[in-house]
């Protein structure tokens, strides 16, 4: 299975995301922001980082890159897309996901091992987790506070589209402790924490993040 990982100018965790795909048993494919080409991948990861320096709004410039035209079109056709951190911000800016991510309420960048509950294990990115599984993966962001209007938040909750929620303390002021959400169809998932940094005991807080990558591979095989 070919999993594309987009590199935007300023992407930082693209190499890590490709490594995570490899660890999960998939074939990582590097995608370039300036190409109108998804290289026939079966799923796409938009990795973390500071695309275009995040000098405007996070993700606001990347959404206009040529590759995003293709990602948006394919996502609407059901292509599994995972946006991690900056990738989540790009998905919101692209209107593939509702709401927005704003500066952390305490105004500082935060990097820590974060407890999460996986509340929706019916997406292609979370199907390998048990329902309400509690996991620990890396969180690192400066603008990770998820916000949306009350109606949107109620809809996300009501439709089971809150994919992951923070446990043991909200690290950034996200409304309703939301760490990740999906679109209505479930194929597009945005996640503020970084599962690609939790795939081996040696270089992270454990292997709890690997499930996101094994999930999509299994979903693609089963589909």
């Amino acid at each position, binding site marked *: 299975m070919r999993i594309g990982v987009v590199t935007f*100018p*300023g992407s*930082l*965790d693209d*190499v*890590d995301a490709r*490594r995570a795909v490899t660890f999960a048993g998939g074939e990582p494919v590097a995608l370039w922001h300036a190409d109108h080409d998804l290289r026939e991948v079966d799923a796409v990861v938009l990795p973390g*980082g*500071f695309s*275009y*320096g*995040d*000098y405007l709004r996070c993700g606001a410039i990347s959404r206009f890159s040529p590759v995003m035209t293709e990602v948006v079109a394919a996502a609407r056709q059901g292509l599994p897309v995972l946006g991690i951190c900056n990738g989540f911000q790009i998905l919101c800016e692209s209107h593939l996901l509702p709401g927005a991510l704003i500066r952390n309420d305490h105004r*500082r*960048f*935060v*990097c*820590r091992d974060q407890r999460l509950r996986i509340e929706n294990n019916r997406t292609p990115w979370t199907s390998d987790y048990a329902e309400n599984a509690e996991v620990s993966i*890396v969180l*690192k962001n*400066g603008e990770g506070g998820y916000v949306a209007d009350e109606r949107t938040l109620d809809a996300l909750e009501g439709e089971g589209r809150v994919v992951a929620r923070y446990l043991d303390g909200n690290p950034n002021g996200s409304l309703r402790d939301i760490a990740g959400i999906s679109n209505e169809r479930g194929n597009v998932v945005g996640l503020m924490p*970084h599962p*690609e*940094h939790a*795939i081996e005991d*040696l*270089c*992270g807080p454990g292997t709890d993040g690997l499930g996101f990558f094994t999930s999509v591979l299994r979903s693609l095989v089963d589909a």
Partner: protein
Amino acid sequence: MTEQRSEAKTRLDTVGVAATDPDHQQPWADLGLKPDEYANIREILGRRPTSSELAMYSVMWSEHCSYKSSKVHLRQFGDNVTDEMRASLMVGIGENAGVVDIGDGYAVTFKVESHNHPSYVEPYQGAATGVGGIVRDILAMGARPVAVMDPLRFGPLDAPDTHRVLPGIVAGVGGYGNCLGLPNIGGEAVFDETYAGNPLVNALCVGVMRHEEIHLAKASGAGNQVILYGAKTGGDGIGGVSVLASETFESTGPAKRPSVQVGDPFQEKLLIECTLEIFAEDLVVGIQDLGGAGLSCATSELASAGDGGMHVWLDRVPLRDSTLAPEEILMSESQERMMAVVTPENVDRFLEICAKWDVDATVVGEVNDSGRLTIEWHGESVVDVPPRTVAHEGPVYHRPFARPSWQDALQADRAEDLPRPATGEELKQTLLRLVASPNLCDKSWITDQYDRYVQGNTVLAQPEDSGMVRVDEETNLGVAVSTDCNGRFAKLDPYAGAQLALAESFRNVSTTGARPLAVSDCLNFGSPEDPDVMWQFAEATRGLAEGCRALGVPVTGGNVSLYNQTGQTAILPTPVVAVLGVIDDVTRRTPSGFVAEGQQVYLLGATREELSGSEWAHVVHGHLGGTPPRVDLAAEKELGDILVNASRDGLVDAAHDLSDGGLAQALVESCLRHGIGARVWLPDDLDAFVALFSESAGRAIVAVPRSEEVRFTDMCAARGFPHARIGVTDGRGEDALLDVQDQFSVSLGELRAAWSATLPAALG
């Protein structure tokens, strides 16, 4: 008269004009030059310098760029390198950074540098561009930067200005490093009143490359093209090096804000990726980053190290501010710029890669065999100099130095004579007070603002003894780095203090299981014009050079920062020492925290009654006097061997260096790391207070699984190294105890509450 003067001011000062107008008054003093230095420039050129030449000489001959006060002392680092030490040294002092061979065809480059004065003026940008500068140094060697570390020094935690300086500096270090995608794997945060008004921001970067990828800063091959690439040149940082690095901060005087550079980490990230792609296609002959002194430095150093000649069309430099004069363009310290020397046939491909990464690149010059650095501005010659006189043959000073008159009195005022706690309850209260003190408390308020995970190779990061990254995912080859310095020890005895900094850094690296290979240093001192300070500097460099020889680890490069003082008060002499080590298999690394119950805790090394300069004397008595702990480098080496072997052979599950706060602090940190308690019995032959709080060097604690105990103790005994079983790990969770038999016991919850509350309470 007035009209004539304004006309002269706007007229371009060309080489021709300089030759025909020898008596023109020049502002050499305002640019920081001394009368004899200016006279020397006139003698070199055989005429007065043009204003552009004057700008170049003044900035390149500043203390910061020329090392004119420190050079004569720094020679000892090279003189003390033996053939044995040279074995793994691929590039030594003098390049952008030193390079060491770590085996399997890999080379590692690392360097620590200061950005102290700019960080006081503008904490965020000063610290940010400090990170940016050291990263470009590493990149310019041909390496991919893989990690950064930041040794920081601040004024007292409760001083109002610390609340301006510290959050800005920490946010700047994080803001820049995080955006570059470089894991921050460690560093220091130390508080002392001498750093109020003069914080220290030292920045270290580590880079990795293959042996054949090493690049050097030299312009050779007549006809080769000189390409300036990266950010456009603006007015930022003009005079920053000579103004900011050569003067002290007085309470009055003009605001210095305009001299500080502004960083653009996104541009630097593009520069990194673009440059690595250029290296991969082997497109450059020589390369240099633009840092302090900007184009003045890059052009003169490249030409000076090459075949000797270069011509530059200065008007081709892309500008952010079109009103800049040639002198300003030469002095600008705009960040995120590099200069490469490229053979003509590779220029197109070079520019193509830059375009792919949206990086501006312009051919601004050409290498020639004239032996001169010539610079023209719209067809007129504004610089014509022998490049070596600018870059490498600047002034050298033999500053007077003498042992301060107060040194004897300081050493006679011993902390061993101070009143000390006696009962178990007093010892417990002392412990709780110390773990909550600014220098010993939990630093995660700071380190949580740094991304330590990016790149996916971080094996150890703060608060471990050293940071460690994996270099090769297949073989698990890795490197470890630690930075250390106790400035109080250096004040009490600069020679011993520098060796203690080296010993601690060496010990921290070996504690994690890595074999120390090389040293980089950042020597932060007060004014070299003060003989007392110059004596501290001379003693510290001598101590460090001789210490490196004794431990067999060469100094590969570093940086000197002088004039760190406010008024007459110099900072504590602060020779920050970074040691880099190699570990064949990072899965064998030894972490600092206890990981399992029922393991034997051993204290390695000898404890003496050494309390002068200690954290206890500082916190409890506000005292600094006496002589620092005894230095025994042979014992340090032996301890290092034991720790590295124990790691390789799997004899220990945890190890932690003893330094600030002594045994008590080390036990607390090892317990709190994973919430595992310990029962401890102190050696019979020592006073309980001394056993807990003495800061004798050359010591570590280790946790040994029972199955390995005999092998471990046999190894220590065979080497004749002091080792005493002082306890056993016991209990898990916040109710578990650190129980010091016959003295006191305290729960991990109570310790953690004290240890972790300090920085959040002070900084919000």
